[in-house]
């Protein structure tokens, strides 16, 4: 995802936090197997 934002002209692209959003759901085991988590992503649109 970081690469997609960088290719679109964003700078300072970073994951700033992660969340265990699938714990306790019926997709918990799939999420654990593939290490799927929620994440905050911050990016700045380049000046030019």
């Amino acid at each position, binding site marked *: *995802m970081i690469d997609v934002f960088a290719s679109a002209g964003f700078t300072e692209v970073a994951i700033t936090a992660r969340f265990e959003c699938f714990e306790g759901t*019926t997709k918990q085991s799939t999420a654990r197997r593939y290490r*799927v988590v929620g994440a*905050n*992503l*911050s990016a700045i649109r380049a000046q030019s």
Partner: protein
Amino acid sequence: MAVMCPVDFDKARLRAEVQAIYSRVALAPDGAFHFHRGPAYAVARLGYDEHELDALPLEVTSSFAGVANPHAIAPIPAGAVVVDIGCGAGTDLLLAARRAGPSGRAIGIDMTEAMRQRALDGAGRCGLTNVEVRAGDATRLPIDDQSVDVVISNGVLNLVPDKERAVAEMARVLKPGGRAQIGDIVIGEVLSEECLRDIDLWAG
């Protein structure tokens, strides 16, 4: 890691599944889903402020189905124009409208009519006059070029097969120096071809 769609993936079916699932989330959020909903989840797992959510209508927050917390990335400045891509029932949208204040605007975009209606009703019940809700999707934003200070989104990009186009749309509408504050899922392992073709995994 961005998950790319197989070239022969049935994107029309995915769109229909997403609309059906999120219409149900809007109309019957207490039903059976394979993802969490509601304000207690948002507070306990994503770090939302309990008092801020309590100040929003339960009809809005009960349909919250985000996966992260874009508001935790940076404060929305007063006077900002904010676009919430895939605003759903409006939890993040109304929080943004409150922070942008009367000199700012919060524009929600969603492709599900039931969700748009929930967000509009919620804005009215909160007395927020700086909220607009428009029909659209992440790959074709009904927003002018370079007109937006902050783009937010929560749990939407993972539902979009063409992520490059969706992110290019964010870049198009943001002013130079504007910020994208995105909540979404990331995947730590390479997915099998079977998983990539499983529409239930995409639609959730």
